[in-house]
């Protein structure tokens, strides 16, 4: 069992009493020094690991089969800088208009000690308890030095608030998740402690909820992010239960707060994140394979950009590209929206003629054929006889059902196109068959 596995299942043990067999053997609770050293080598000397935010963690779940992303993220490598150095920079960025709007909206939601927020929470989550009045909501101060300090302060505040048995609103708490053996700090917009000892994650977004409905893809992204926070909170909940003896429950319905219609007034909806939670949990366990992936790399592989004094990378692009190639990627066009390295992977994937460049679903009908060249060769009519002699076995052999279907598709397509150019003047009904 790997490191993260152990951590997560330990939390689970205290939470929903899994069999004791899942508890980790002693001595596996910290990352092995060799892995830590290896990851440092991969980043290059003196490069601080880039911390993952909830958005990046959530994006990992989108493509769990990508070893390249798992390794680069696990090692805390700056993929954006890497893509820039490889000559295929990502096209990300956020408009400052959007950022400003997000900040104004959040401050509006949290104004007056979060009165509006608490009212929405009470309305939407239909808790049995009485609605919180202004003075009853505790607003613990969470300021501390550094992410570690803030995380510790947050854990303390959560414990105290839970023990007090009242309402509490934690503004921008800091939570830690273990990713591949090193802590990653994430910062939810807010966490609410209920009088019954349960906790709710609050996610404040600036996309509108119009007539009670918001853009589905944006809600999905927010739910995946919130799932990371819930997961991080469960860690703390385990400790609090152990210390206070009071059963702590992290609610799996989070509160999503958005602007109502075309205004800047807040409205909210409860979003069930159980599915996202399960995905993220599974994905984080899989991430621990970073150790295996790192072990499979050739000796001396590094993604060090060797920055000069002014921060510009001095490592030759070819050498860097070779290093990146040592770990396989699972490129699909969906990556373009969520991974900084996607344009590089797409370039490589296109050079190799991989069929996935046309979409993830394409491969389903192509059997064992993996490249565009193979598919077109198999579909060509004259290839039939040659292929019969050359390859009686394996993908592309003439009696492969995928090849037969392809050849028929090619023949039908050629027939229709030839008919169309030859008889454009004829009525369509007549042409339909020629």
């Amino acid at each position, binding site marked *: 069992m790997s490191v993260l596995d152990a951590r997560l299942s330990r939390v689970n043990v205290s939470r929903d009493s899994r069999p004791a067999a899942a508890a980790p053997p002693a001595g596996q609770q910290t990352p092995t020094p060799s892995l830590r050293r290896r990851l440092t080598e991969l980043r290059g000397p003196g490069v601080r690991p880039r911390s993952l935010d909830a958005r990046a963690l959530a994006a990992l779940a989108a493509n769990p089969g990508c070893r390249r992303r798992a390794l680069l993220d696990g090692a805390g490598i700056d993929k954006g800088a890497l893509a820039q150095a490889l000559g295929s920079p990502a096209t990300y960025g956020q*408009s400052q208009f959007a*950022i400003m709007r997000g900040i104004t909206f959040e401050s509006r939601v949290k104004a007056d000690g979060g009165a509006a927020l608490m009212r929405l929470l009470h309305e939407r989550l239909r808790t049995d308890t009485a609605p919180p009045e202004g003075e009853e909501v505790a607003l613990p101060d969470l300021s501390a030095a550094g992410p570690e300090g803030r995380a510790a302060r947050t854990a303390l505040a959560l414990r105290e608030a839970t023990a007090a048995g009242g309402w509490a609103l934690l503004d921008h708490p800091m939570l830690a998740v273990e990713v591949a053996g090193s802590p990653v700090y994430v910062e939810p917009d807010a966490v609410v402690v209920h009088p019954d000892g349960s906790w709710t994650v609050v996610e404040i977004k600036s996309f509108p909820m119009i007539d009670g409905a918001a853009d589905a893809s944006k809600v999905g992204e927010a739910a995946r992010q919130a799932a990371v926070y819930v997961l991080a909170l469960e860690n703390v909940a385990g400790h609090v239960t152990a210390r206070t003896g009071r059963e702590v429950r992290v609610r799996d319905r989070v509160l999503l707060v958005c602007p109502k219609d075309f205004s800047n*007034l807040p409205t909210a909806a409860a979003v069930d994140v159980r599915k996202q939670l399960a995905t993220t949990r599974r994905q984080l366990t899989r991430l621990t394979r970073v150790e295996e992936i790192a072990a499979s790399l050739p000796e001396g592989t590094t993604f060090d950009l060797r920055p000069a004094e002014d921060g510009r990378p001095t490592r030759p692009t070819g050498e860097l590209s070779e290093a990146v190639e040592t770990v396989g990627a699972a490129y699909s066009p969906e990556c373009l929206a969520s991974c900084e390295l996607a344009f590089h992977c797409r370039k490589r994937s296109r050079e190799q003629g991989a*069929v996935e*460049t*046309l979409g993830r679903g394409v491969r389903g009908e192509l059997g064992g054929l993996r490249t565009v060249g193979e598919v077109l060769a198999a579909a060509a009519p004259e290839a039939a006889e040659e292929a019969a002699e050359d390859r009686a076995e394996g993908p592309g052999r003439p009696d492969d059902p995928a090849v037969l279907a392809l050849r028929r598709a090619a023949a039908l397509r050629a027939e*229709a196109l030839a008919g169309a150019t030859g008889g454009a003047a004829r*009525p369509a009904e007549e042409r*339909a*068959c020629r």
Partner: protein
Amino acid sequence: MSLIQTLARMEAVASGRAAPLTTVRHRHLSERPLVLVPMTTAGEAGAPLGVLVGTDREKPQLLAVPQPRDRELRFAFLAELAESVLPYVDGFADAVEWEERKETDPETGKRVAVQVELCADAPQLIVPSTAGIDFVRLLGRSMRFRRTAEQEPETPYPAPPHVPLLGRWFTHFGERSRVPGASLLLAMTGLLSRHWATGQSMLEDQHLGALLAWIDPPPGESGQVAAERAETGRDADGQLLCPPAGPATDPAFDNRLLSPAMARYDAGLSGAEEEVRALIEGQLRPTWDAVWQGLDLLRALPPGARVADRWKRDRWSYTAHRDRVRAGEPPQPRRDDAVTAAQKLASRETAQAQLDAQEALDDPLVMAGRRLSGEAMCGTVVHVEMAYSESRRPTPRPLVTLRTEDRPQLSENVKLYRPLPDGRTQPAEFVSYAAGGGLVVRLTGGMGRGKEPEPGSVPEADDAVTWTLFEHSPRGGPELPDPEDTPWTHGGPPAAAAAGAPADAPDPVTAEDFL
């Protein structure tokens, strides 16, 4: 994506140029469409930044908001937009044809034929991308519940005249665009990717510049290189060579160019407004030209035979909404009631089935896809054997033996349909596979009323014929109850639910402009 389309994409990869997916054009294109290229403020809902709008490709009208956070400026923009769009939309309202329609007479309860108006043509809006269609819907929603000073003198922050009306039309266009095959509001990316397969994925096809680069690459350059440049190419200032087709802007444009220019406008510097307008036009103009380039490419394709039939439905839709507006009916509700929603879904499903059938009948290349999936077959008639039904008055039921290489998914008595040259459909059924290859089909209609089939209604030996397993004009499902009979499973009659605010109540406005 079907195998035949996947293959077309791979051909495009190999040749460096998009491959045709159709041999005809499957959507109606107006002779005088209104092109609308919108741009929105990042992070805001319903705060447009600017549009290029017009029917003349050389002279687009630029409407811009120098500061989207100012309610007055936004209203002024919407008023201008209404002034340029509504005359176009209304321009089709008065030229009418007369059509006969069966209606139930309220007094006698009999079905009688009545003459009704049908507009001879209808407006057509073209936006660059599917996101543009969503934006038209969003603008429609934001405008249609507004009140003008004329409607309600007491209303705070009244909207300029015509703005609520534009909202209703935009809502109608947006709603109609969800009907498969409808052409009142079309996205150029959708139009192009229906007719051509590029060497990239469907996700990447959402980028209008990249899509056009594949279909019509610059001379001597492969589509892939041109598409990659359109996607990511930037100039020395870090600005995209091919600005996004909107309505979302490029963050680099917002941060480096637009934001400083807006700050200068806020500071009241002279010439700042012109500067913002020029910046917005610079982002919109390439997309405007791209939309017209796309129209040129599509117009080069001959229209499919049944396209006019579908456009007629769009004309009905336009005429019906014109009548609702003239009758002073309230704007479309925020949410449809259960019966209306079910009716809309059912009619969209029917429209999808009709579209699929009509496209296949109009286009051998689309039919090829249906043949590959076993839903149609083409072949040659080997021989015809005359046979009759066993009823008291025997009718012709000839047996046609067909030779085909297609592999339709047949079982006994499966219904088959044959398109006739005059556009009608002849029904038939599958009988059995013939000994020595081929299959036997029994014609079951379309041969006249006599004992002998009408001449030309039965295929002869060596004729090339097509039979489909799908109906050619599929009908919708059973009728739905009236709204007042909505079952309790679907929320009951709408009147019970609507006890609260009236359905068309305006959105609340606040003294402070929050954007």
